[in-house]
């Protein structure tokens, strides 16, 4: 089993390297570069950039060099812990991401807690009380949750918040608190703004997880061992929670792989709609402006998080699923 873990770890490293090549290549794919995007943007605001000035900028950023040279320099810097300077933000990439990563993590984590906190109990309830009044209700809500894209939900919530309370939803701080130094008032302000976007973010995933949990558990509940457990006189709660639920949790464990990149990026579309200062919109803007060091760093970060997530989900699966462990030995 140790050998298996080590092999997975090494494979993970190779994957990360491949991701770095791929992410750098993808960022270079669109025609033009940061300088041409910059020229367009300057032209739009009425200040022309001369051809000479453009060349000087390309030189400064090393944009004229062949792909492998640019990649080599980039990778070399990253290995030294330097993600480079964001061309658009004109700040080190680590700072630009750093500004947003904590809020992103907080928001994603809050959404995750809500998702799991709602989905698991409801999923179990729906399976155990299949075709009950409650099951139908949750099924209905669940299908609506799956069918309505959550950016639309975000828009609807924003509309009502604006109509009914005259407040604009969006952002994680009120304008007075935006500048305030960190402290209890600011934290409280954040706590007031956090639930709404977190719930919107959570709803789509919740509906999906309820359905998965319900289906898995229904499969398990029909197994003979459940009948045996009941026959042995175990209490109903124990019967359900001890075995079938645990078995039904497997998909959740394998889901961890996708959760990790999500934690650091947040939902891109919802963040844009709600004006949340998370990493997602940053990536979109970086790609549009062809800010390749920033975009590269975020794409790499997402890739690395996926690899780490997969690795952890493997470990968790082995822990919750004894059958896997036995296969390995």
């Amino acid at each position, binding site marked *: 089993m140790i050998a298996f873990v080590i092999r997975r770890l090494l494979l993970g490293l190779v994957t990360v390297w491949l991701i770095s090549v791929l992410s750098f290549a993808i960022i270079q794919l*669109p*025609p033009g570069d940061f300088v041409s*995007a910059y020229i367009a943007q300057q032209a739009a605001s*009425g200040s*022309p950039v001369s*051809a000479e*000035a453009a*060349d000087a900028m390309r030189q400064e950023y090393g944009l004229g060099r062949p792909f492998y040279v640019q990649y080599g320099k980039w990778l070399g810097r990253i290995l030294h812990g330097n993600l480079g300077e964001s061309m658009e933000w*004109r700040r080190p990439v680590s700072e630009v991401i750093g500004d947003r990563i904590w809020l992103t993590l907080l928001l994603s984590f809050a959404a995750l807690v809500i998702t799991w906190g709602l989905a698991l109990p409801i999923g179990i309830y729906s399976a155990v009380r299949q075709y009950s009044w409650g099951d139908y209700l949750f099924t209905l809500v669940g299908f609506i949750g799956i069918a309505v894209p959550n950016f639309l939900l975000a828009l609807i919530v924003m509309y009502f918040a604006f109509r009914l309370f005259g407040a604009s939803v969006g952002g994680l701080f009120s304008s007075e608190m935006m500048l305030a130094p960190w402290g209890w008032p600011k934290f409280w302000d954040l706590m007031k703004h956090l639930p709404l976007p977190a719930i919107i973010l959570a709803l789509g995933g919740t509906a999906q997880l309820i359905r998965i949990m319900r289906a898995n558990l229904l499969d398990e509940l029909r197994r003979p061992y459940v009948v045996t457990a009941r026959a042995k006189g175990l209490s109903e709660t124990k019967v359900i929670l001890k075995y079938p639920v645990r078995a039904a949790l497997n998909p959740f464990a394998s889901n961890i792989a996708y959760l990790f990149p999500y934690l650091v990026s947040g939902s891109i579309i919802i963040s844009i709609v709600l004006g949340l200062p998370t990493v997602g919109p940053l990536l979109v803007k970086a790609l549009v402006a062809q800010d390749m060091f920033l975009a590269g760093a975020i794409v790499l970060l997402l890739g690395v998080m996926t690899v780490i997530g997969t690795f952890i989900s493997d470990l968790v699966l082995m822990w919750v699923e004894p059958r896997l462990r036995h296969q390995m030995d």
Partner: protein
Amino acid sequence: MTSRRRFLGYGAFMAAATPSAEALAQAVSGTSQFAASGLVGTLNGAVQSAAIPTKFAEAPQLAELVKAGKLPPVDQRIPSEPLVLKPLDEIGKYGGTWRRAFIGPSDGENGNRIMATDKLLFWDVTGSKIVPGVARAWDLSKDGKTTTLTLRKGMKWGDGSPFTADDFIFWYEDLYQNKDIVPAPIPDMSAGGKPGRMVKIDDVTVQFQFDSPNYLFPSLLAGDTLIGGGQAVRQSTGNTYAAYAPAKYLKQFLPKYSSEAEVTRRAKEAGFESWVRALHVKKDWQLNPELPTLGPWRTVRPINTPTWTMERNPYFYVVDTSGNQLPYIDSIVMTLAEDIEVVNLRAMAGEYDLQERHIDLQKLPVILENRDRGKYDVHLDLAYNGADTTLHVNLDHRADPVVGKLLKTADFRRALSMGIDRDQMNDTFWLGLGTPGSSAPAEAMPESPGPEWRDKWSKLDIAQANKLLDGLGLTKKDSQGFRLRPDNGQRLIIQLLAVKSFMDWPKHAEMISQHWRKIGIYGDVKEAERGLAFQRAMTGDHHVFVWTNGGTELLYLYPTWALPTDVTSGVYGIEYARWYASNGAQGTKPEDPLLLKVLEMLKSGNGMEQEARDKNAQEIWKIMVDQQFSIGTVGQSPALMGVRLASRRLANIPSRACIAQHCRTPGTSHPETWFFKT
């Protein structure tokens, strides 16, 4: 829609306007119907006053600093001849924070424009008259070869160091002429094809000398040009223009004053790749809070953070008529909005105190509906350029010779123009608030060729358009009624390259393409991301580029969106632009004799005095409209920065502001004179 247009009474504006220099002010004073709507007011705002107050006052927090001995008294901070502004309605009171939106580090213009009082010369509230700015006075010699600027005695940078002619010479010799920093000389600094010089006469006098007459130069200094733009805009985002720079502060970053090794070492220590990169950041007011500036406010939290924040400049050189040092408002907080929609929603919720940038005209009904809830007033400011949506025709298209030949043909362009239903476009995209017509500027502008040229070839006339196209031999049509190419019998396709930017131009192009069905022209809308579109225009393989023609109302200052003059923009043919910019040394000479003629006329404008120059521009416009080098649709509207939401707590807010490139919207409205009543 018609009723709304009547409600705003745009006709009255047109009728009252005559093309002369002072006409603008007159035109708007006769617009009673505009005033009745309550949305479009009269051009007004703070005006300059010649009388210098004898006593000066300052903001309470500055007075405290003076008391604590941390700041010199106010009369030592302002120049002995400060710029005196008479606020629009009343003398204001100090205090408050102006909340505003910006959309990211690329939105630097948002702040630059508020700092526009750092320009050497500027325009009055009507945008038609040049007035002093940082320079107290200017003098253009009789022969037009010399422009002399007189600075203000005792004027100081934001850090308290003196602002003198040496700051100009420092810019000219150490920055502008250093190829590492400014790779190429700028056209603004040359006349008759030869570079001019900057000379220091004494501490408060600077001279710009040219070998040929350059009567245009004061306008260049007042305009939003590379030389005249001011420090905020022209020394940010990697630019190093604007004629002056804080010498004392910036010298530490230049090799000349220590050594290349030394500045490189220091740059590397601070985390920059090279000393040039370090300099570009250090001289950028958006990024470097330490940088001494001349504008009313200065950055305290840079633009690359979620809140771009500014606070008052204690050395600002402008006072009100009672001697109170401006600005009234303590600080500006711009909050980052990820999306334009978010800006609009927050604006309607009253979360911004004054916002005209990124406000969407199409949301006007909702914006008006929420006025009382959001506690703001709405003002519509009308632009002067001919068309917010202009079809800029590539006059040098080579990739497809058949299309290229047609685009070079005046009758073809005229037919395309007459095939557009401008009224429908106006109703759909401008809510009926625009003025349909050609690309020629508003009649109120001194360079306007006159009202008949707003309509020439620019009214819907399907029959005439079809006749012209038939006359060109494009008589064969396919089964769907589209005209065929003369060479291979395939459908003739005209591409419309459009970008979703200030307006949703791809949608506008779609509508035009629908209109063109009636004249048998297949318009193919190519939507592209902004950078990509500009790049394609640079290679010259586009047919028609859809964009505004903003700025062309002052043709000599901003000809980019009217004629092939700008080597950084290839919309009218990049080779033609190279030919023009290099005085024939590079690029390709246009064949069209009329295009050649207008380019020649444009170039000769520098050497003409004001009156002759305006006349010359009118003649240029007549030819450009007759030839339809660019096809105008709808303009003179509030679509671009003209929908202004102002908090009801604010006072001294103009009822109408000049929105134009040269007015640096909201620059000529002098935000430093606005204040919070409560």
